[in-house]
């Protein structure tokens, strides 16, 4: 009986979650928390058994239909009686990286379109006992291509006494701030005058601790303190020395279950070496159908550099395996004695899962800055377990 209840629960989770691939849209179409499907309470990365099962058959074709019955029958990503959870993420992109420039002949030279491997991250989580677990992942591609401040690995011990009580993560972690996006090209995370320089790099992590607390179904709280070494490497103009970084995030999760409406609204703050970053995020989604997400981030750093960035993103699930997505972003920067920075970005694309565990994301991207305009087609791909 218990087994049937568990299977029905898993099936229900799959039904509500299968129309989504990437955070943060997933929580709004599934009506569930990031931690329901991911080992990391922030979401992203290694999936737990629920997360694995939710996506195991969410493709245009199933593994069974293409003749891989053995993989189709794999019902979880666990071993050692459920103590060990394993997985990986591989992400890459084919795009024109960088910016156009003036050539020596007076003609505009476009950056070449190249394939860029971004992430190859095997990850493990081990449940030591009912309240203590260990999680670790490593990204070998860090040694091939990385941003300053990006960490080649993260890992933590998590103490989670019981559901409803605060949990504590200790280790190499990324402090919670705003929405955790899986696309690190967002203007929200960058300086419009130096677009290759993220304020919070992708896969950023520093040593420290974070408390995550979901006291009720409509509230979550996160508070972190880390030693900001990698954050300084990311933006040494903003942060001059390795110093403590403190962050906090509060999110409300209102739902109208009868209408299938899920939403969240929240605020974040991060302070480090005299720099302050504030953010607000809001999202509304309807089960199986689509989402609207908004986020704004304001920062003031050394030298009175201020950056204000805004994002609006909409998505619509045509099928479980095919989602339309569009995004508008605008970022502006000011600093006394320097010219202002400004960038606007439009992105429209598809999230297509031809098979479970495999996503292709063709997109059209329009980026207009004070220095240049670059419009291009790109293709992201994501393979995971």
């Amino acid at each position: 009986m218990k087994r049937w209840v568990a299977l029905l629960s898993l099936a229900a989770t799959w039904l509500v979650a299968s129309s989504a691939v990437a955070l943060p849209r997933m929580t709004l179409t599934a009506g569930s928390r990031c931690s329901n499907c991911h080992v990391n309470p922030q979401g992203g990365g290694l999936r737990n058994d629920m997360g694995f099962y939710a996506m195991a058959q969410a493709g245009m074709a199933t593994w069974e239909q293409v003749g891989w019955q053995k993989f189709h029958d794999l019902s979880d990503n666990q071993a050692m009686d459920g103590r060990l959870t394993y997985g990986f993420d591989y992400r890459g992109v084919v795009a024109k990286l960088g910016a156009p420039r003036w050539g020596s002949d007076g003609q505009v030279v476009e950056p070449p379109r190249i394939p860029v491997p971004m992430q190859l991250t095997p990850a493990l989580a081990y449940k030591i006992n009912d309240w203590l677990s260990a999680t670790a992942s490593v990204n070998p591609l860090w040694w091939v291509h990385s941003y300053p401040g990006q960490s080649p690995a993260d890992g933590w011990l998590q103490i989670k006494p019981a559901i409803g009580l605060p949990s504590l993560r200790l280790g190499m972690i990324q402090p919670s701030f705003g929405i955790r996006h899986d696309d690190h090209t967002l203007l929200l995370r960058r300086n419009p005058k130096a677009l290759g320089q993220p304020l919070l790099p992708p896969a950023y992590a520093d040593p420290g601790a974070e408390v995550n607390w979901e006291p009720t179904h409509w509230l979550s709280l996160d508070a972190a303190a880390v030693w900001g070494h990698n954050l300084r490497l990311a933006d040494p103009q903003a942060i001059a020395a390795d110093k403590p970084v403190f962050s906090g995030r509060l999110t409300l999760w209102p739902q109208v279950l009868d209408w299938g409406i899920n939403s969240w609204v929240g605020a974040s703050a991060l302070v480090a070496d005299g720099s302050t970053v504030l953010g607000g995020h809001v999202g509304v989604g309807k089960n199986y159908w689509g989402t609207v997400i908004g986020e704004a981030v304001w920062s003031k750093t050394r030298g009175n550099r201020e950056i204000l960035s805004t994002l609006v993103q909409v998505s619509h699930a045509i099928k479980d395996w095919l989602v339309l997505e569009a995004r508008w972003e605008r970022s502006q920067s000011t600093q006394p004695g320097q010219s202002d920075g400004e960038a606007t970005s439009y992105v429209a694309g598809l999230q297509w899962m031809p098979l479970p565990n495999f996503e292709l994301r063709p997109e059209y991207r329009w980026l207009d800055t004070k220095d240049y305009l670059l419009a291009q087609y790109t293709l992201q791909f994501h393979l995971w377990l």
Partner: protein
Amino acid sequence: MLNDSDHPRHSAPCHRRQFLTRMGALAGAAAILPGLGGCETAEMHTAPPKKGATLNFDVAVDPFKPLAAVGGFVAADIEGTAVLLVRTAAKEVLAFSRACPHAFLDMAAAPASKYDVAKGVWVCGWHISEFKADGSAVAGPASPSGKLDKFAVTFDGAKGKVTL
């Protein structure tokens, strides 16, 4: 692990037809993608470098004193064009465009930027791309296709001139 009864098999022929139909539709959609190439564009909002504009410098005079030693570098602007001057040898100064072709950042502003005398390469300190004397990237995210614009320089070991 679950057994087959937990994962009932689908009716394969029906799904195969469905799968092939969907693949065909998507292949058709993919076929029109090359035609969309016309929607790609690149434009500059800044003025092009003024061909023939020049800059005279003296390594004994500010702001060019960092060029007094091999490995030193300075940022300069020549009629609106951002240029990087690097002292690479006793009688050699190289001049490049200052924006790294990887992410368009000002290389002179990166604390880790340097001329690696032993390897004979300019290192962009933002993402550690390395560039040879001809401006071509040999390592890091700007490689293999990235290239810095290089400008003509005359230098006698003390004074010199850059020409765009």
